[in-house]
């Protein structure tokens, strides 16, 4: 049994200009103690997928179809109060630009302890002590517990956010571009902290990134997302060795390879499609250098091939 | 501009505000033709405090003066003071804000301190003391109201100028040798105009309000009868409870004029908001 299973998820934004299919027929599974990477350009629906799992989608966004099974319970049909109890305790999220995730007028300690007070039946004093311990766990000075966010640097804030998200020992952690906006050295430190915590706390995680290096280092399997859809899904090593989908190939060749031979970096021509009134056929077709006639009219189905999934006409039998 | 008016009319509050303001403008322009007599003219003893009749549409006050005429002519005073004081305070405030924002440094420091100081002062007591010292003529009232209201405009314009100054087009103009006054009045000022317009509506509201209160407190121009003064006389007469036709019309006129300007102001703020058009599907 998978810890988390997303099945045929469709999430649309209903705007005056039309319906944007931000997440369209997305499905994946995350097994216990595994880390799944979700990769793609900005605006491809990664963050929306993450928020959908937390059920934190705001109108005009709406889940219109599909299931999100967490421990075999469907989150989509869960009522508000049950969902609230699940957040922070069962499922936790570390959001993009975590610097803004901290309430500026609340001390760090209070913000960390708050999750404990909400979920566990413990007193304020104990919550405070556990918050202090948690602060040490993420490598921050426990004396800083009564400090306020503005007294922290960017990297420290991110650590505090990680402490906040993991304090209740959630079973499933979503990391939505946890290192965006930080400098490279701090990124490194945070990644090793995350990897360390994953083992320490036995976390199952979904890691969202647009940086291939980050994914390569942390994830067991990877799903590649394009225009609201998953186009390829495989184990990390195979994807890096031999990406199947033209988009995955393009994505990989747009990044430098630090260890391997030198190669020409190529940017992907064109821009990601608008999500409103998208044309028929494969969404990547206009930018694809291998496009076939069929790509224009028919949307490719997800295919199973050698332990990997890919949605592309090139691989249709 | 045409688009802007169209937008205003698409806004419920804007429509309402414009409609009522137009009514009052009409009343003040055509006052002599609207069944009015000289509002200062007392009539004979038996016509004192008479209730509404066909002769006196809204009745008379304790000196036998026609209330309807006082209301109609009163709209001239409110609107004049409103418009003139708003123009004076917005123009002066814009000038100060422009200078401070554009030159920065010590000029800005000094001007900002002055603006802060004036904003800190309690408006009504300052207006009262100035009006009492200068003497209550309509021009002094306009002066007093402007003294109190210019700082808000100065502050808002200043911050707008500060951000405009950093825009590339100013930089470009400067690099080809445009003079300070050219930059200020030809490049920056036109971009501040929409803001001045929104401010003017607010200032008109405040000025009408201020005149009304000053007059109610007995600091109105004695040679004119404004709505605030009508209330002052009624309040002082001690018989206002027995002559509601005397008290209610000015209250109603004041409230509806001020509310309509507030509505118009809200509408302008709303429609100049970038998201407005989209939300309306326009």
């Amino acid at each position, binding site marked *: 049994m998978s810890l988390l299973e997303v099945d045929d998820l469709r999430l649309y934004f209903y705007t005056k200009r039309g319906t944007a299919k931000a997440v369209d027929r997305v499905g994946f599974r995350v097994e216990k103690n595994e880390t799944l990477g979700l990769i793609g350009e900005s605006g491809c629906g990664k963050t929306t997928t993450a928020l959908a799992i937390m059920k934190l989608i705001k109108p005009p966004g709406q889940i219109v179809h599909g299931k999100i099974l967490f421990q075999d319970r469907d989150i989509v049909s869960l009522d508000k109060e049950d969902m609230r109890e699940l957040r922070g305790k069962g499922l936790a999220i570390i959001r993009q630009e975590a610097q803004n995730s901290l309430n500026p*007028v609340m001390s760090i300690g209070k913000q960390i302890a708050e999750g404990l007070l909400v979920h566990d039946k413990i007193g304020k004093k104990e919550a405070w002590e556990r918050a202090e311990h948690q602060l040490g766990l993420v490598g921050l000075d426990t004396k800083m517990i009564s400090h306020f966010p503005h007294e922290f640097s960017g990297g420290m804030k991110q650590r505090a956010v990680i402490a906040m998200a993991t304090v209740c020992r959630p079973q499933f952690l979503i990391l939505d571009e946890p290192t965006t906006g930080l400098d490279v050295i701090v990124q490194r430190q945070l990644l090793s902290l995350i990897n360390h915590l994953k083992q320490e706390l036995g976390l199952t995680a979904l890691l969202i990134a647009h940086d291939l290096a980050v994914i390569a280092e942390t994830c067991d399997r990877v799903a590649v997302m394009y225009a609201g859809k998953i186009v390829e899904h495989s184990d990390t090593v195979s994807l890096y060795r031999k990406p199947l989908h033209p988009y995955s190939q393009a994505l990989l060749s747009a990044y430098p390879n630090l260890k391997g031979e030198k190669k020409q970096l190529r940017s992907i021509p064109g821009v990601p499609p608008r999500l409103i009134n998208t044309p028929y056929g494969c969404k990547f077709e206009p930018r694809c250098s291998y496009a076939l006639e069929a790509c224009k009219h028919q949307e490719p189905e997800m295919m199973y091939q050698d332990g990997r999934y890919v949605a592309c006409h090139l691989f249709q039998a | 501009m045409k688009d802007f008016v169209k937008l205003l009319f698409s806004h419920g509050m804007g429509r309402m505000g414009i409609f009522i303001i137009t009514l009052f403008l009409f009343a003040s322009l055509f006052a002599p033709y609207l069944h009015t007599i000289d509002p200062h003219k007392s009539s004979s003893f038996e016509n004192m405090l008479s209730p509404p009749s066909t002769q006196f549409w809204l009745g008379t006050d304790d000196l036998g003066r026609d209330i309807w005429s006082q209301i109609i002519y009163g709209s001239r005073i409110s609107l004049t003071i409103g418009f003139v004081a708003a123009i004076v305070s917005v123009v002066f405030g814009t000038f100060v804000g422009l200078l401070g924002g554009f030159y920065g440094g010590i000029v800005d420091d000094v001007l900002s301190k002055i603006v802060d100081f004036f904003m800190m002062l309690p408006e009504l*007591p300052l207006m009262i003391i100035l009006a009492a010292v200068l003497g209550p003529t309509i021009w002094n009232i306009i002066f007093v109201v402007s003294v109190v209201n210019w700082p808000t405009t100065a502050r808002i314009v200043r911050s707008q100028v500060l951000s405009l100054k950093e825009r590339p087009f100013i930089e470009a103009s400067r690099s080809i040798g445009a003079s300070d006054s050219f930059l200020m009045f030809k490049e920056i000022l036109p971009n501040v105009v929409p803001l001045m317009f929104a401010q003017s509506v607010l200032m008109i509201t405040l000025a009408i*309000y201020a005149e009304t209160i000053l007059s109610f407190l007995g600091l109105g121009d004695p040679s004119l009868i404004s709505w605030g003064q009508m*209330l002052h006389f009624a309040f002082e007469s001690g018989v206002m409870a027995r002559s509601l036709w005397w008290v209610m019309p000015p209250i109603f006129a004041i409230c509806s004029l001020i509310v309509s300007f507030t509505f118009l102001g809200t509408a302008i703020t709303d429609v100049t908001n970038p998201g407005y058009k989209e939300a309306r599907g326009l």
Partner: protein
Amino acid sequence: MKSFILKRAGASLITVFAVICLNFLIFRLAPGDPVKMMFTDPRVTAEQMQEVREKFGLDKPLGGQFISYVQRLAHGDLGISFWQKKPVTRVLAEKIPQTLILVITALGMAVILGVILGALAGWKTGTRLDTFIVSASLAMYSIPSFALGLILLLVFAYTLTIFPLSGMSTPASGLTGFGYLKDVAWHMVLPAFSIVMWYIGEFVVLTRSSMTDVLGQEYITSARAKGVKESGILWRHALRNALLPVVTMTGVNLGFAVAGVIEAETVFSWPGIGLLTYEAVMKRDYPLLQGIFLLFAVSVILANFVVDIIYGYIDPRIRVGE
């Protein structure tokens, strides 16, 4: 925090000094002879005027006059009220408590109710409740306090006779203790209501817009992601942040708030500084008016100082940063 308070205190003192200068200048630079202006009574003789001139040092040059003005002020001497023939300081002191009771009650209620209603409206943006709260406050905000006061007076005091017409207590009632307090509270209902109704709109509109701002912030979503209850989101996370601009605006608008007091006290003959202002205007009692202006201005500066301190308390960034 200490240095922050000291800094604010210093700035407030400078402002007070500027107010004193302004107060001095308004009367000296006014057109005409200030003494002649003070005495509108034709029975006052030229000698008496001369006497006053000497007493106030009005025959000396402006600089000297200013020094002696400040000296007298330092001793609490604001001159003699023409109308009451008593020192202005004493006249004012007698009226301050009555005004304070009214202002604190009304302002307190307006802030609490306004913030709660505004927070609700912001929380439920776009609902009917929101539309109702906002349009009602906007309308209330546009009606001058004295106009509302007059309507209340005519309806509830004159016509329905539910509430007393004027004053602060029933004359010669002989009430003491709790009975007296009840009587005062009864008299306070209408004037306080007319002030509350006027202030409340401002707080509602401000809190609402600040609330909608805050609710769009990341940290609200991340608090939800922690599983915090909606009530906790509203009161613990959103409101405290939403209050910051409200506190600032309260300070800025205090000067404006004074107007409500003058109007309400005048309409309901509440025996405080506001009614005194009206009477001083009617009697053209200039020394008293000057004293009143100084009192109001200094109170507003003082209140602003307090507001700044409160702000420093709510916003940790100010406390340490400055």
